[in-house]
């Protein structure tokens, strides 16, 4: 019974509003834009944050990543033909052997050499690493296997191809058990990796060797390439002596990450004269990112709140005008037996219809905008299912809150005065 009454009230409300189509349409605009901007901004914020979190997560929230960084030219001993810097074997040993809370560490050394198969020659990152790499980074195999302990011990000439490298070197055939040449030596392909989740922040397309990777055992790398790495730069050779380009410290327990990170910081500061390293703590980045997101959400919430408030005030303003304009109608209804609550309901329903109507259109627009942004601006957006629901409830709430006063004004008019109006 009640729902039938409400249905009728809504129907009549819509008809009253349709009497002034343009005015009603304009009135809903405030809530419409408010709601759609809330949804759109939430979607953009959520997308950006998800993107960043994804990037950070890929580094591993349980890891501490140490990287070698070429020191500033001035600091480097000038004139020296060989530049020695970065993470050392000693650093690695200290971390693995003496740090409490460290489960293991994966060293990575990058070799500047080209990779060939038949006519195809590319320059992916040639990475010398240990079997743990796979587990610690959470990468997954597509085919075959990763570098094994046996490979490491036997200094085997085997390699594992990253997804892009595999595609480029073997566009037509199965790379497994094929041979590729790295520098002057031949390596047997024992496996290929699955692509990393592509993120929009990544280098745009395949063909860019930057993202290509090829993995060989650490021991093999050391024995073929030795300590010295020659890097071709601007026509001349640039000799560098770097033990490790990167050490991924696997802490295993997220609770110990910050502790281990600090220990690494102190240890490196003590043992390195120049700042030829950097420390990346994905967890810290993540936490910082969470904080940024929280602030972002607060700012966003305030902006959205203000725009919705403005929308609500707009509706209230129009409803107050409507009530005045329809004073006579109110008088007639009262004379014909309408109680105060009937009048309150009538105007409240009209306000809620306006705001919810604006809200619904706002949701539609709010769902279109992120899609458009994704399409045209190549930005990731995520519309969480609760955003439209939230927006809908907010718009209904606005209708009630900003409708109460006009409705109350209407209901408390003196019937005789109201009938005499105009």
């Amino acid at each position, binding site marked *: 019974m009640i729902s039938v009454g409400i249905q009728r009230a809504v129907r009549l409300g819509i*008809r009253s509003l*349709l*009497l002034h189509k343009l005015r009603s349409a304009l009135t809903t605009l405030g809530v419409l834009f408010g709601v759609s901007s809330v949804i759109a901004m939430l979607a953009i914020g959520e997308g950006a944050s998800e993107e960043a979190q994804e990037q950070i997560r890929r580094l591993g929230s349980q890891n501490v990543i140490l990287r070698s960084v070429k020191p500033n030219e001035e600091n480097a001993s000038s004139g020296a033909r060989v530049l020695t810097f970065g993470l050392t074997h000693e650093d690695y040993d200290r971390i693995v052997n003496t740090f409490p809370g460290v489960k293991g560490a994966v060293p990575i050394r990058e070799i500047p050499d080209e990779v060939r198969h038949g006519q195809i020659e590319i320059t992916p990152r040639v990475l010398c690493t240990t079997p743990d790499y796979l587990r610690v980074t959470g990468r997954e195999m597509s085919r075959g296997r990763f570098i094994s302990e046996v490979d490491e011990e036997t200094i085997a000439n085997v390699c594992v191809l990253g997804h892009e490298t595999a595609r480029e070197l073997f566009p037509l055939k199965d790379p497994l058990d094929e041979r590729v040449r790295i520098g002057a030596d031949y390596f047997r392909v024992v496996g290929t990796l699955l692509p990393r989740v592509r993120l929009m922040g990544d280098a745009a397309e395949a063909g860019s060797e930057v993202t290509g990777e090829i993995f060989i055992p650490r021991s093999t790398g050391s024995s073929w390439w030795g300590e010295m790495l020659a890097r071709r730069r601007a026509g001349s050779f640039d000799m560098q002596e770097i033990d490790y380009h990167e050490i991924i410290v696997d802490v295993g327990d997220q609770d110990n990450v910050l502790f281990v990170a600090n220990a690494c910081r102190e240890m490196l500061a003590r043992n390195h004269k120049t700042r030829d390293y950097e420390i990346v703590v994905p967890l810290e980045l993540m936490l910082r990112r969470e904080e940024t997101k929280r602030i972002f959400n607060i700012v966003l919430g305030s902006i959205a709140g203000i725009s919705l408030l403005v929308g609500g005030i707009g509706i209230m303003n129009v409803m107050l005008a409507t009530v005045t304009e329809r004073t006579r109608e109110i008088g007639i209804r009262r004379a*014909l*037996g*309408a109680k105060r609550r*009937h009048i309150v309901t009538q105007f409240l329903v009209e306000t809620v219809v306006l705001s919810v109507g604006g809200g619904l259109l706002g949701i539609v627009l709010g769902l279109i905008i992120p899609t458009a942004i994704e399409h045209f601006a190549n930005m990731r957006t995520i519309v969480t299912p609760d955003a439209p629901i939230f927006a809908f409830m907010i718009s209904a709430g606005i209708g009630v809150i900003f409708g109460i006063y006009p409705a109350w004004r209407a209901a408390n008019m003196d*019937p005789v005065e109201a009938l005499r109006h105009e």
Partner: protein
Amino acid sequence: MTNNGDSSIVAELEAVSRVYQMGETRVEALADFSFQFQQGDYWAIMGSSGSGKSTLLNLLGCLDRPTSGRYLVRGTDVDELDDDDLSDLRSRELGFIFQSYNLIPQLDLLENILVPILYQDNPDPGAEDRARTLAERVGLGDRIHHLPSELSGGQQQRAAIARALINDPALILADEATGNLDTQTGQEILELFDELHAEGKTILLVTHEPEVGDRAEHVMRLSDGRIESVVRKGDKS
């Protein structure tokens, strides 16, 4: 609180006054007014402008309350009713007809006729059929889905009469019901009133036109909020 001594009394006013206080000035729109309106009477209430006709009608219609004195509708003292009870009373016992028709613009004729039913707590399920019948009766059977703006003044007023009849009221109150109509259309409306009177309805018609007054059964003249004269045609003949 009830006075069922004479059930043929529809509305009874006992020493009613209605005072408007506007700053320093005090207007006694109705002063020490006592009268009984009997069931089935057809009254024309006349008097110059400002004599208190509308004030009286508003009080009788429970849209307003006396400043002092008692007003009983079918034996119930209005003073003992709250705002909701008065609304209830209006939706069940009273029928209003206004000078400017006062149909609700966004509702079609049928819906307009049904408005009083809308506000009843337990509406009669047959009301819609009755509304159609009433529309037929006032000659608007083929117009029930028209909006008021699509009708002439006379048609609108006839719709308003149908609306006043939908709840089978104890008392029909008409304030200058023909005031906005030309003579011809006014006559048609008055004929409707005659019919209603013949059916035994109680009608109070406020007017300042003598010709209209002549049509009524009885005539009451007001002056400065008091009864100036009462002419009962039954007495005359």
